[in-house]
């Protein structure tokens, strides 16, 4: 992993050193897992459930997002999703929806960084 790539990912909110440690220093594996994060359907499932007004499905999707962000050391996203899961499990759909104002830009910054367009993400 080049220092350029590392800077890029860190700009996307990823603690690269910690994420690498979690995969035993396996850089190729980390890239593969970051790719899985892009493919994961749960972010869109979360948005759809919030729009539908289904707190249970929304909480399940947010839970999965939280797990992935934790594993990939997306520190800020992990904190946000952890709060959102708790809020939605408590049944507060409105507050859960409002949190998307913070979550969406952080998510977009991360995905852009992974795709290699961190500068477009506006770090």
């Amino acid at each position: 992993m080049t220092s350029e790539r590392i800077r890029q990912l860190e700009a996307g909110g990823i603690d690269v050193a910690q994420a690498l440690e979690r995969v035993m220093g396996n850089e190729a594996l980390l890239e593969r897992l970051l790719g899985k994060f892009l493919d994961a359907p749960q972010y869109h499932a979360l948005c759809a459930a919030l729009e539908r007004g289904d707190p249970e499905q929304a909480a399940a999707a947010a839970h999965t997002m939280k797990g992935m962000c934790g594993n990939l050391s997306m520190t800020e996203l992990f904190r946000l999703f952890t709060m959102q899961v708790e809020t939605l499990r408590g049944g507060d759909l409105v507050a859960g929806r409002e949190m998307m104002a913070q979550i969406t830009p952080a998510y977009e910054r991360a995905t852009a960084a992974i795709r290699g367009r961190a500068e477009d993400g506006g770090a």
Partner: protein
Amino acid sequence: MSNEERGVLLIVDDDAINRAVLEEIFAADYAIEEAENGAAGLEKILAEPDRLCAVLLDVVMPAMDGLEVLRRLRREDLLRRIPVFLITAEAGDQVLQEAYSLGVMDVISKPVVPYLVRRRVRSVIELFQARRQLSRTVESQRERLLRQAEEIIALNQGMVETLATAIEFRSEESGDHVRRIHDITKSLLSETALGKDLAPEEIEEIALASILHDVGKIAVPDAILNKPGRLTAEEFEVMKTHTVQGAALLDRIPQLHRHRSYRYAVDIARHHHERWDGRGYPDGLKGDEISLWAQVVSLADVYDALSCKRVYKDAFPRERVLEMIRNGECGVFNPELLRCFFEIEEELSGLYQKEAGLV
């Protein structure tokens, strides 16, 4: 040791990233298998539980969550054989409490810290494997001890028979006499009402003791023991001492005192020439004063002596043997003992026909 020998580590998690992270952490140490939900994981565990060295189990999963998997494993009593770790992002008090009370080994929070999870899982797996190994060792040692005990018992019986046979040899008889006394005593006690108050082990102990009934003959001089004709009164007095001498001899061997046959052997050696009417020797015991086993061996001894050739006499035909016993020509016996004896005598007579080659 190859990974396969160390066992299979099963990762049950619906999140592919989680599975990949855990696999990367443990792939160097164990063979890894994965399941993407609780139902699939449970199926894998139940199919072949002993293949697994540990299970890493997520809590929130579709198609059966982690706690339900734990409950099923608990029902199958598998949680004591396979260490199961919960890997969870939300360890609420209630979940933790139920998981621990079901018997989960440990709860590890997500996202995992590799060196910590590795250490915790690995040390528990080593503990379980050491315990399995130990219990296998204990089991095989137990089997070996049992086999040795059986060998010792067989050796004991062999030595007792050897001793008794050596004594019989002096009176120019073969070892068959003591073996027949053993068999007749055992048959009378186990196949008739005589032994109704005795456990099968006690009957075995008495039968073994019966072999030593004439052990005191070792103290009787050859000239008297092997005299072809009638004994004089003095000679007969010496011959009679084999009862008391036998009991004294057994008493002098301290190791024998702990043997379960010992008390029977001493009693039988001393009292197998007592008579129901009180006119036997050495103590002149009468009726029920004579123990059941001494009475049984006494009759077995008479029956065998009459049925075989001895230095002082030829073998009598079977009809004559039965007549002499019934008429009390060779001693007076307990009527109940005689009744039981005649009940199975037909079968006992087989012991002699075989030897004479008549069958």
